[in-house]
């Protein structure tokens, strides 16, 4: 019989095996090109467990920061930075020597906004380009600069900025940006609850929500748990999650439902019972499975209090 701790131990051991000599992890098990996203999830998963070289991973993250304070998707990438900056800020949260780098990252995040924040695009979306239903006054963060806001990068940015205890020292904009981001998520919810990638209605058609996008948004909206929009989305996720067989979406669903105090025992059982979990090619998913099994610590890492 397998139990959660045994499965978790196996998965963490596999994760440690995949760590590259540079300290980072590649996106796929078969790859040797380090990438920032799997490194962040792996660093979070290996935090406080005696496998893997966490310090080396954190050092890798610090080494790869762009001069403008952002992080690239992988070392050697163009240096404008992107959505991954939020994840790195969270992955380095307990590391005192990383404070200056995190501050630079936070400043970059505060200066980065969806294109609809600009008056010209706001005007265009309000007057001429209205096939996608959304309020351009409510903006968040793009995947990459010079594009519009999307649900996942906005949610990660909210989670990262919410981890900062005070809005001072040049970070006074945090409450404003977080509120705008929350408003954006509320505005773009799908009509039946939950979130698609970016918008709820396109060409008059209601889009179907995605489980992983919804779960990540719900983590960011933990402080709005009583809001009917959030409640409706939690209900959607709770209905959908039992049918999920893909570990990535299932792991995010477990984290979000745990954050919103819904029962997750059967979902965790489903996750650990998935065949060949440690053989998952996608290293981010492997790390997320670890985080979902150890969900209390994972929520703490994302700054979500239950």
């Amino acid at each position: 019989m397998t139990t959660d701790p045994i499965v978790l131990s196996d998965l963490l051991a596999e994760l440690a095996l995949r760590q590259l000599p540079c300290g980072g992890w590649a996106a796929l098990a078969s790859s040797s090109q380090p990438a920032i996203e799997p490194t962040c999830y792996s660093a979070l998963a290996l935090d406080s467990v005696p496998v893997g070289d966490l310090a080396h991973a954190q050092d890798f993250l610090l080494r790869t920061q762009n001069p403008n304070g952002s992080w690239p998707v992988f070392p050697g990438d163009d240096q404008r930075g992107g959505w991954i900056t939020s994840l790195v800020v969270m992955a380095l949260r307990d590391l005192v020597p990383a404070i200056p780098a995190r501050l630079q990252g936070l400043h970059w995040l505060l200066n980065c906004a969806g294109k609809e924040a600009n008056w010209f695009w706001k005007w265009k979306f309000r007057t001429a380009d209205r096939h996608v239903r959304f309020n351009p006054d409510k903006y968040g963060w793009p995947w990459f600069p010079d594009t519009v806001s999307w649900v996942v990068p906005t949610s990660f940015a909210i989670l990262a900025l919410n981890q900062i205890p005070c809005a001072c020292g040049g970070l006074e904009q945090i409450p404003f940006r977080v509120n705008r981001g929350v408003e954006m998520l509320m505005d773009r919810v799908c009509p039946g609850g939950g979130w698609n990638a970016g918008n709820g209605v396109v060409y008059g058609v209601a889009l179907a929500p995605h489980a992983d996008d919804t779960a990540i948004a719900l983590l960011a909206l933990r402080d709005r748990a009583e809001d009917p929009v959030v409640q409706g989305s939690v209900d959607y996720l709770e209905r959908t999650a039992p049918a999920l067989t893909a570990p990535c979406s299932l792991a995010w669903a477990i984290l979000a439902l745990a954050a919103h105090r819904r029962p997750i025992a059967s979902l965790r059982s489903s996750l650990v019972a998935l065949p060949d979990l440690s053989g998952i090619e996608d290293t981010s998913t492997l790390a997320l499975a670890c985080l979902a099994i150890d969900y209390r610590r994972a929520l703490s890492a994302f700054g979500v209090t239950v």
Partner: protein
Amino acid sequence: MSVTRRDFLIGSAALAAGATVTTPFLLPKYHSDQRPKRSRVAIVDAQQYSQQLDQILAAGLRLFPIDVLGKTVVLKPNLVDYIPGNAINTHPLLVLAAAESFRRLGAKSVLVAEGPGHQRDTQLVLSQSGYEQSLRDEKIRFVDLNRDELIRTPLRAGYTGMKHLWLPRTVLEADFLVSMPKIKTHHWSGVTLSMKNMFGVVPGTRYGWPKNILHWKGIQESILDLCATVPIHFVIADGIVAMEGNGPLNGTPRPLGTIVLADDPVAADATCARLMGFESGRIVHIREGARFIGNASSALIDQAAETVDVPATPFQVVPEFRFLRAPLKCDATASNAQESQASKTPYAR
């Protein structure tokens, strides 16, 4: 009339400035003309998704002088998202049939590769759309192009203004790349066929979901830059059940009973557009692609199987693309104005 040195310098400066401004509009935006002298297309009858597709496809492929002996073949289906009842994705049975056919033709390896454009959880799309089990049963490797190793690749055309893209190693190192689109309408680009299908090789981890940077650079322009840079060696388009209306996700299934095979993506897409009841010359990336990627003119396309049967009722499209359905002889001025407008407003969120 005497020309002073001052007049000469001013005139020279004006000429130089004029050349600087106009040259970008006059020079071609592509680096090389990759068009074959003639292209071959086969429209093959296939009324349903079944095990018979193996034989149907094998017979269709015999109409082409394909040489994949000892080569790595990458099949690139259109796998975007999953919505029950919607004909969004290339059907897995067609992909399996293609894999089997290329194996029989002597390919060293056949793999399936895609970077879903809308759904981040690739394994979820694979599972829900029936790919995961099928690929496992047939021992066909799948590569998630959203997360593959990336190589900085200079673009071989300049429609977007981008100099390079980070593209997946699996695609760049393929000996024989097969684009396997679902024949669909698309609310931002008019149609999504073998050329638009190449958006799936652009990695989401680097460019976001749904590859939003390409939308802002211009969908038509991005299609051209991509297809100039990553050559498509063959096309197998799934038109057994196509999609019309508000594609690529929320349109209506439209049975077409057809698979389109081609050795040229422009010829494939022009033929598919005709099968949809559209004037292919009004689709920007097909018209422009016909200048340097492949052939769109019927005169340069050998139809190896059935002839192009234009439907009595063209595919439904969103209002911005109704001009695709109008015959060319009708109100060309109005159609061109609409086309110009539609090509400038595909910047999807």
